[in-house]
């Protein structure tokens, strides 16, 4: 899933940011250890460190503010501008998925459906996700093993998850909320054509 840049997925972006951060932290630790041998008056040393602290503080504030604003653009929540070209109703249960094309008129516990479904590529699909027993999580995995999006499936709530499948192919549905002993075997499939 490549939202932020043209060459890194979200997962790769997360890994890259954390790796760069780790290098910076290790560099600071090395700097502190290597410079600790020199004696300096504590007030002078403090003054020097605090000079950088002020700059760090304002830099971090600015970075946090800008990142917040930018990142909100990709939130997975409903917007008034959303146009749902297709709807899929999803009901999670211990331990499987029932899915039907379109908005189901049945109550979740009465809805019949299959663990596999076929939907079109290139259209915005609204998944209406709920559960009839405990908490589950409806997570969509592509063929290369990347989670592309997800939503909790909670009893008593209907979560509307929107996603546009750009590429045709088979996508797996996994449960990402621990829901009991067979949790790791709760799978479904989406065929995108």
């Amino acid at each position, binding site marked *: 899933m490549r939202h932020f840049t043209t060459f890194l997925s979200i997962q790769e972006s997360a890994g890259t940011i954390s790796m760069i951060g*780790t290098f910076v932290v290790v560099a600071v630790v090395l700097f502190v250890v290597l410079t600790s041998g020199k004696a300096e008056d504590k007030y002078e040393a*403090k003054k020097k460190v605090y000079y*950088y602290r002020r700059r760090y503080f304002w830099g971090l504030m600015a970075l946090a503010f800008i990142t917040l604003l930018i990142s909100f653009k990709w939130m997975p*929540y409903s917007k008034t501008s959303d146009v749902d070209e297709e709807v899929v109703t999803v009901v999670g249960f211990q331990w499987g998925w029932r899915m039907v094309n379109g908005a189901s008129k049945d109550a979740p516990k009465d809805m019949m459906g299959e663990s596999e479904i076929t939907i079109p590529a290139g259209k915005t699909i609204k998944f209406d996700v709920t559960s009839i027993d405990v908490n589950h*999580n409806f997570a969509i995995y592509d063929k290369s093993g990347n989670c592309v999006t997800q939503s909790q499936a909670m009893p008593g709530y209907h979560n509307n998850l929107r996603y546009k499948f750009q590429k045709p192919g088979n996508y797996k549905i996994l449960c990402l*909320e621990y829901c*009991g002993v067979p949790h790791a075997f709760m799978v479904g499939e989406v065929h995108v054509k």
Partner: protein
Amino acid sequence: MEELTTTEYKKQRKLIIVWGITFLVVFPLLVTLGMLMRISHAELADISAERFYSFMTLHGLGMIGLLFSFAFAGIWYLLSTRYVKLKLSVGYFVYITVLLSVIGLAVAALIGKFGPGWYLLYPLPFIGGSWPVWTTGLSTVSLLALGVGWLIGILHVLYAMAKEYGGFTNMLGWQYIKNKEDKREIPVIVLASTISLVPGVLAILAGAVLLIMYLLQVMEPSLNFDALMLKNIVMFFGHTIANITMYCAVTWVYTLLPEYTKRPWYVDKVLVYSWNATFFFVCIAFLHHMYMDLEQPLYLQIIGQVASYSSAIPATAITMFGIISQLYHSRVKWGVVPLTFLFGAAGWAIGGLSAVVDSTISFNKVLHNTLWVPAHFHTYMLLGVVLFIFGYLYYVAGEKKDIHTGGVAKLGLWTYIIGAAGFLLMFYYGGMNSVPRRYNTYSGMGVDATHQAGVYGAKIAVFSIGILFIGLLIMYVTLFLKLTKKDETKNLD
């Protein structure tokens, strides 16, 4: 406070040693449970799903219980031997309730195979579980007892500080903001402990409400509570307790590091603003656990991300820069205590950064409930809190003596860090490959790439835990030798 008598000092010291030994016994047992879980992921041994999830539940509850309990005990010892009078009877009451609770949880998990995970996410403990009802009842009662023990201990500490320092607002350092000449000075540990422990009181009360609702449901199975509301409550409880465990441990660094650098660490206005801001961030950051509950009100989702981002500002700009200014050009002798404190702060920073990444909603939609989540909090705990604990234990074992030595201890520390780093790296690798968390096996998901990444990472993780154990063993031997040096402990008096 009045001068502590030698006998009182010895009694308080005995209490922290009892806590220390308990930590040293229980910690590797809980690590072993974690190792067994990774062995199951690596497909090196066949562990039944029931057994796996009972291990997972005990590992989670046990670790949080153990680490927070020791973090609290560490504050107790420093306060009681330096700043305020604390009743030993209350200290032992906390110890015994924690111990009994842990035994109750262990019985439920190991004998009854109680396995709904640490968070007992409603309504899982009551629907479709493979564990008997008595295990839910026993675990609920044990957790309630744990909460009562912690609550009484924390309230006693807060009361004693309020008595000594002239009220609650003084403990929060507000007198520094008013800038009065005759203000009541407070040590940093009083400010930092207050900010750390008050959210703990709120979290425990929320946890108690939740557990009482669970007990009601055990007695009346037809009850039906709102799942999203209960998830918010359990996350407020669990996230806050895990979070303040770090802040409690940081109070030791504020108190002990100056003894090695000879640079006193005083409360000032900036520190007061920073820690008071932390109070709010700690109380509301838990909201980031509900990002994928798309029905949670949007404003709460945004508050969750803003609070999670904001918490990084005081933690790094004040505490970590404070640690740097303590050590920079200080001619500190790099004994094992200052080293563990510096490395622990680094682990906190690294785990904190990957937590901030995960707390970004647009990242969370693919990282949520993958191995990225245990990656960040294990970094925070294993290379943060646990390193602080070992630094603290070395301090207690040798007090300020032996600060220039400890070569073997440092070898143990490095071995531990290498093992922990390898173990953590595999969690991050798993998260980047979307490997789900809380799976007993990756063989049933039908996604080959994720399955392979999960197994491969788990194999390296198992090997790394082996290295971590060697590091622990070396540190244990050196700690044991320090503790049993009789002439040194006599000199302490």
